[in-house]
């Protein structure tokens, strides 16, 4: 380089030109390759979301639909309520209590599926390789049936003349049927049943990767079964627990069919409230605003989970 500076510069320049051309080519190819994914993201995810966002800031049409005039009435209605007689403004208690119920029931459902799913996944993961696929198959069988039918099946079990009450009455444990249907408990039960596989599968995936020699090492070092569970197994399968919790919590929050059937008309959840606005309520801007609110709740919950997950991830990997 030092003895031939002129040629060196020249070759660098021409090299740079070739580099620019190649890079331009590269960029074009990259966009081309990404176009199918981008198309799906734009049309199936971002597009509808944008429409919802726009609709939430429009005026409601008299018979549903929207009038293309800017209005914050939809968002106002999400949180506040104006009395139709004296125009006093208060919080929209009905909406807020539905938000609260949705979050509470989804959380309870997540805990319940975790409590049932954890031992189930552990049981499967500790079986021999020959039997694991069989048990996994059994876990996924409910997925093969329509959600509506599964929910009606649950109803058959828990209604006043249903299996549970009949058996309890026959056994003489109760004299009159217990009201399970149309309660929050029924909704939680139904959702836990429906979403249980979504908890078991990611839990199983992380337990299958668990090195059970670590469990033996724990026993060897004077840890009791409970201590091994708390100090070794749970920290190591935490990613699976978090993934399962997200997969159960998120759809529970927006559940529509289960609360509609098992909760009856009065125990609404967010999904039902939104449906109501687009249907009988004829208040599309409010429905759109509620949908976005649901989305925000889900995103906040996800952020919380992810932060938790990455913290445990940092600890386990380094």
């Amino acid at each position, binding site marked *: 380089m030092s003895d031939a500076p002129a040629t060196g510069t020249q070759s660098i320049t021409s090299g740079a030109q070739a580099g620019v051309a190649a890079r331009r080519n590269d960029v074009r190819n990259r966009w081309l390759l990404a176009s199918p994914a981008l198309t799906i993201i734009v049309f199936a995810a971002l597009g509808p979301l944008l429409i919802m966002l726009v609709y939430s800031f429009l005026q409601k049409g008299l018979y549903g639909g929207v009038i293309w005039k800017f209005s914050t009435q939809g968002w106002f209605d999400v949180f506040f309520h104006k009395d139709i007689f004296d125009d006093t403004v208060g919080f929209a208690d009905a909406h807020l209590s539905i938000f609260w119920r949705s979050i509470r029931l989804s959380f309870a459902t997540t805990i319940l599926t975790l409590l049932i799913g954890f031992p189930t996944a552990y049981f499967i993961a500790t079986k021999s390789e020959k039997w694991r696929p069989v048990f996994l198959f059994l876990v996924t069988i409910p997925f093969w049936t329509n959600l509506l039918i599964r929910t009606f099946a649950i109803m058959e079990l828990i209604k006043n003349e249903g299996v549970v009450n009949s058996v309890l009455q026959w056994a003489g444990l109760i004299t009159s049927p217990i009201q399970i249907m149309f309660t929050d408990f029924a909704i939680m039960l139904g959702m836990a049943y429906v979403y249980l596989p979504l908890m078991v599968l990611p839990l199983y995936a992380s337990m299958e990767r668990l090195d059970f*020699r670590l469990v033996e090492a724990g026993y060897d070092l004077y840890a009791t079964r409970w201590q091994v569970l708390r100090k070794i197994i749970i920290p*190591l399968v935490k990613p699976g627990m978090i993934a399962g919790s997200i997969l159960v919590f998120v759809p529970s929050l927006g559940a529509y069919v289960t609360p509609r059937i098992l909760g009856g008309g009065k125990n609404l959840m967010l999904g039902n409230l939104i449906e109501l606005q687009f249907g009988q309520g004829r208040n599309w801007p409010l429905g759109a605003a509620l949908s976005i609110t649901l989305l925000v709740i889900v995103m906040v919950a996800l952020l919380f989970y992810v932060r938790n997950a990455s913290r445990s991830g940092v600890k386990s990997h*380094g």
Partner: protein
Amino acid sequence: MGGLHGNLDAMPAISAYQVTKIFGSGPGSVTALDSVSIDIQRNEFFTLLGPSGCGKTTLLRLIAGFDHPTSGRIDLEGSDISYLPPFKRPVNTVFQSYALFPHMSVAENIGFGLKMQGKPVAEIDTVVDAMLKLVKMEAMRDRSTAQISGGQQQRVALARALAPKPKVLLLDEPLSALDLKLRKEMQIELKRLQHETGITFVFVTHDQEEALTMSDRLAVMSAGKVLQVGSPREIYDRPSRRFVADFIGETNFMDAELVSAGGGDAVLKLASGKQISASLPEGEDITGTVTAVVRPEHASLTKPKPASILTGTLENVVYFGTDTHYHVALDTGGTFTVRMQNARGRTGDFTQGDKVGIDIDDGATQVVRD
């Protein structure tokens, strides 16, 4: 029961009485241990040696408490521990895979056992520091176990198992994952640790050289049975079974006729018609046709002479630097290997195709059972 008669020091650290372990049931069952009885003394470096599948790891797992015997009993310093869960036994294990907890630091790993025993934090810290010093890992205290090398993980695994001061330390092929140089280092290190801590080590390996160099005593196992227990020298020089002689070191096997026997010694008649004195293994009487073994370094080549015990043709000469191996095709059939040290300046005494005689050192012939 034995404890009533006093002398605690004479009591073995581990006693196995007729321990049998059968996995599964019915026609598919596997007998991993077949009526094994063994005494492991206190403060001893004891090795269980055998090929894979011989039951050595099963015996180790029974002592650790991960499995329980199908029949028989295991005592730890005189008290029955056969059915105690692992967390109630003062016995710790160094696993083949190390099994370090990936979500804990080096120090947390080492302190885990003490923490589970409910020891106060200050004591745990003191012991962890002492253990880190013992295995020369002070600088790695707060590292994650993923950030240290295989050899260092090995040291952490050792420190973790030694920290609760177990009565017996079990080591399940702990050196098999290390490269040769590190393995040699760790062999010396393990001996040092055993010496410094005074803890009984039970070491499982399939590497006969490792077993010979490290052990105070070893047990050779095959197919679920203990074939011979003794010091490395006893096992090497006086193998009692064909398998033991074959598994440990190189050996020449010869068929011979028992001429006379008495007091542990015997006179054998070899296929060549020559007679040779030999040692007999302990136990019931042996008669008729027997197998005798001679180590290659306990024999030497000569020019053929009438007094030669064996004669043959030199088939192959392999030079190893410190010594040379001579493979001789015997006139009576079969081959015999002789290993002789290379003295400086002595070369080419024998070349391929030479007719040679073989002398066998006095007391080097050992009769083995099949």
